[in-house]
Structure formats: C-alpha cells, structure tokens
C-alpha cells in the first residue's frame, strides 16, 4: 500500500519535471533594473504576443555585468545597462550588434539621445530612458536651505539621509562636492573623497537603490540623494518634498536596451523593444516610473502630473549640466576598496 503511494508520487514528480523543464521556446528572459517597468505593461505584452517574459532584476550596473558574466552565455535575451556599461560591454564582447530594421518604432526616439559617445552609431544599444541624481528634502522636517552636497554634512541631519547604494554615484558625489571631476582617479583626491564620505557617514541612515522613496514617504529620513524618478514618486505622495539640483553638479545616466551575445530569443527581444518604444506604452511606463523621457512621440501625450513634477520632467538645460559616469579601467580597484572603507 505504502509502496504504491511512493511509486505514484515518483511518477507524478517525473511527469511534473518533464513539463516544467520542457524548453519553452516562446519566452523572453529579461534582466532589468528593479522598479523600472510596471507589471501591467509586461502582462499586456504577454497577452498581445503570447511570449512569456521571465523577469530578473539588478540594482546597479555592476550587478548587471556580474550576472551576465557569471550566467551561461545566452541565459539573458535583453538587458538595460547604462551608458558607460554599454561601452564596457562592447569592449568585453558581451553584447551583440542590433538589427535596427527590426524596430518599426525606432523613429519615436528623440534624436538628441541617439549617437552618443558610448555607442556612436547605436550599433549595440537603443536609449530607453534617462535619469539624473537629485537631492530630495522633506520640508516638513527640514527648514534650512539645502543647495549643495556640502550642506548635507550639517550635524542636525544625523541619521537622516537615504543614499543610493551605488559606488560610482556616491564616490562621484563626494568628488563633486570637493570640486573635482566626478570620474577622478587621482589617489590623493580619492583619499579626500573618502574622508568627506566618512564625515557624512553619521548622517546616512541607509544605502538603498531599490526603493529609496519609501524612506522619504514613510518619514524614515528627511533627505535623500536619489534618482529623479524615485524623488518624483515621493513628491506625488508628499508635495512638501522638495527637489534640489545640487550646485556642484550631479550624475546623469541614459539606460539602454541591449541584447547579450548569443541570446537565444533575439526575435522576442526585438518585439519587446519595439513594444516598449510605442508611445502609448512609454507613457504608461513613465506614469509609474517617472524618469526623464527620451521618446519624442510620447511627449505629446504625457500626463499633466508628469509635466508639472520637476523631479520627473528634468529640464533639458538642467540635464545637460550633469555628467556621465565614465569607464576608468583598472582604477576601479581604488573605488572598490574605498567603498568597503566607507560602508
């Protein structure tokens, strides 16, 4: 009697196994930033095309790189690296050339964001969205003027700042605060940056790249150095949160679609990219995650709430004052070590 049950169980498991492990050809393995594309958009895409989207996430460009490198080639079909990471991935032969003719909606993109220095002819990447780092201040909790990174050092902000968990952005911020270039590699200047960050450390409550808005909305912290869309969402919840563009400069970033080398579902990746490039879909994404829009056709139908929100709709003139993170080659080890020292 018992034996029968065991045999039935084993057979059932093997059958289940067979079903689950059967290579489903109509899938798309996406590796994307957390909090970036609403679930609803992905569901709609699945319904429209019958393609099943497997979705994984990362919190920094470095994590994206590590995941793509450590997984077997062909594991992911579509990734969303930023500018400098595109350049690096091209050099490392990790992403493949794109066939732009597959993308009917390519014309929707604002030409200002095409042909940028990291991929001059857009052979490997198509811009998806742009972002910039801002300071967010809850005016219910902070009355003083905050206009610079230096202002964040004030003693009264003890344990009151949420900071992006991203070494290039945070160390870059310290360098900017000291009046240096954001991509400085001179060891002496980096030591100064370390000391500056150690001085700031008591004021930092948490490092978080995934959802720093939660800290501001739940009043866990009064200040944040975060991406503009996160700030914009915090402003939606609490209009007393103010957005400050730091005087010393700030990091900007353009995230792109890219297809890893030897991806197995390239056709599906193109369909997904083309779907996202549609203006109505882009508007849906922007409504949920209000980053800076690079889709020209979508501009006309952007909601009022987005256009009015200064954190979301970063002005072009302001945006161009920011600087990109750049590849610094082997000097990255100094950044790695510095990061371990300040955390």
């Amino acid at each position, binding site marked *: 009697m018992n034996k029968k049950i065991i045999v039935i169980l084993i057979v059932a498991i093997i059958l289940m196994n067979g079903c689950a492990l059967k290579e489903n050809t109509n899938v798309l393995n996406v590796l994307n930033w957390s909090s970036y594309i609403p679930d609803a958009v992905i569901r709609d895409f699945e319904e429209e095309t019958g393609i099943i989207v497997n979705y994984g996430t990362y919190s920094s460009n470095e994590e994206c790189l*590590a995941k793509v490198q450590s997984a077997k080639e062909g594991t992911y079909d579509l990734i969303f690296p930023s500018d400098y990471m595109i350049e*690096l991935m091209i050099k490392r032969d990790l992403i493949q050339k794109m066939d732009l003719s597959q993308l009917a909606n390519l014309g929707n993109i604002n030409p200002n964001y095409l042909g940028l220095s990291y991929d001059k002819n857009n052979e490997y990447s198509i811009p998806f969205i742009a972002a910039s780092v801002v300071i967010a201040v809850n005016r219910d909790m902070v009355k003083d003027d905050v206009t610079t990174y230096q202002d964040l050092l004030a003693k009264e902000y003890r344990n009151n700042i949420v900071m992006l968990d991203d070494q290039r952005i945070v160390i870059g911020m310290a360098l900017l605060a000291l009046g240096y270039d954001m991509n400085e590699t001179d060891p002496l200047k980096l030591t100064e940056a370390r000391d500056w960050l150690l001085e700031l450390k008591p004021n930092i*409550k948490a490092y*978080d790249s995934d959802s720093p808005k939660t800290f501001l909305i*739940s009043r866990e912290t009064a200040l944040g150095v975060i991406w503009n869309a996160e700030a914009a969402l915090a402003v939606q919840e609490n209009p007393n949160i103010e957005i400050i563009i730091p005087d010393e400069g700030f990091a900007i970033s353009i995230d792109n679609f890219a297809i890893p080398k030897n991806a197995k579902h390239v056709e599906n990746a193109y369909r997904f990219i083309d779907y996202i490039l549609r203006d109505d879909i882009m508007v849906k994404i922007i409504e949920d995650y209000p980053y800076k829009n690079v889709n020209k056709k979508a501009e006309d139908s952007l909601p009022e709430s987005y256009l009015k929100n200064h954190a979301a709709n970063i002005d072009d003139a302001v945006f161009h004052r920011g600087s990109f993170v750049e590849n610094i080659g082997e000097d990255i*080890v100094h950044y790695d070590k510095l990061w371990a020292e300040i955390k």
Partner: protein
Amino acid sequence: MKQYDSKFKWLILFPIVFYCLFLIVLPLLYIFIISFFQNDYYGGIIQVFTIKNYIQILDIVYLKVFLQSFLIAFITTIICICIAYPFSLFVSEKKSRYKSIFLMLVIIPFLTNSLIRTYGWIVLLRKEGLINTLLFQLHLIDEPLALMYNSLGIIIGMVYTLLPFMILPVYSAVDKLDRSMLEASSDLGASKWQRFIHVIIPETLPGLFNGSLMVFIPAIGYFFISDLLGGGKLMLLGNLIKNQFLVARNWPFGASVSIVLIIITFFLVKLYKKTGGKMDDLGGF
C-alpha cells in the same frame, strides 16, 4: 554470489559518491583554486598563481569586516543562549503533554517564510512603525527610537531567525537530564546554584555548543538580514562575499574570503568535537 554482492554495493553507493564528488568536493576545490588566481579589473579570472587575495584580507578594511561579523554573530549567540537556556529548563519541568505543545509552538514560526517574518520586524521597528507609535502614544518617548537600520536591527533579526536552532538542541540536552541524579545531588545538600553549575551545566554543555555552532555560523553568512534591517551600512562577511561575486566581480578575492571562512568553521567544529559533541547531533533536530 560474492561478485554480485560487490556489484550491488557499488551500485547503491554510486549516487552518494557522485553527489559528494560533484556537489561538495568539486565546487569547494574550484573555489580553493580560484582563490589563488588573479582577477582582471572587470570580472575575468586570470589563471596566474598569486597569494595577493589572502594578503588583501589582512588589509585593515577587510579585517574590520571580519571583526564586525564575528562580533554580531557572537552577540547573537549569547543572546540566543540567554533566551533558550532558561526557556528549555522551564519547559522541561512541564508535564509531557505541555512540553510537546510548547515545542510545537517554537517550531511553527520556523516553518513559515523567514523573509516574511523579517518583513514583520520592519513593520514593527521602523521609525514610524508599530513599536515607536505605541511608545509615543503612551507618552513613554518623545523622539522615535532608532530600532533598525543599525546593528541593533541586525541583531534583533538574527536572534529572531536563529533562535529555534538554539532552542531545539539545548532543549533536547536539558530534557535528557537525569532527574533522579538531580534529586540525589540535592539530597546530598547541594544548593540550587551548586547543582546548576556542577551538574546541569556540564551535562548540557554539548547541546549548548551544538546550538551555538548552529547559530554562530549562519549569523556570519545571512546577508539578507543585514541588508534589510541594517540599511546596507554595516558590511558583514556574508555581504562582502556576495558583493565580490555579484557586484564587484572579484571572484578570486571572494573565494579567498570564503576559504578563510571555511577554515574558521572547521576550527569551531573541532572545538565542538573536543568538548564531546557528536557530529550527527548537528544535523538532527
């Protein structure tokens, strides 16, 4: 017949040998080997021998991470002992029916998702969370207490998640105590404290060490608790290894930290065996 038996023997031993080779020996050996390789600055492994990775561990920055981790794990272990020991003693005095009910009550939370329970702590501990709100409404505090996003939060989370690993071995040791022996010692005029120190503690020591090992070692590696309750500010060994593998792309360095961790673990296990602990007790709850 003999030959048949020998063939049969190897047939049934094959899966376990295969398992040990491919899921234990090979992975750990591979980690050991790459810990002596160099890394190129963006993620590759260069197959050139070096001990640079081990020297790098001696850097004050990383020694600090070791120290922090061990300190947090140590405090967690001590707190777990302080809770589990009296708890087990008191429960073991109960009638056997209540004993099994209490033990079941300890195991139930352990069977629900540990992350969701950690999330429960976030709801409780955050600045405008339940505890601070309650204390504020009772006028016990004017300023919210900093209960999480610091080492206190990490320790609460660790103690909470690992407490059952302490309670179960300690309880089984305490429950096995020979009641008649205890009574004999008290008949001989031993005071309560004498009895506790000279009889109860030595008898339950292996259980205590067992629990300490099962708490201390995971506490070093549970990166998700320091991530969620510590605000990413305090780097523990678990976070360091995770970062080397998934963010900083320096696998050789991450591997060397792991090897050091394995050596420390083996050392602790040796200590455990020396105090009379049995290896089989570690896996059985």
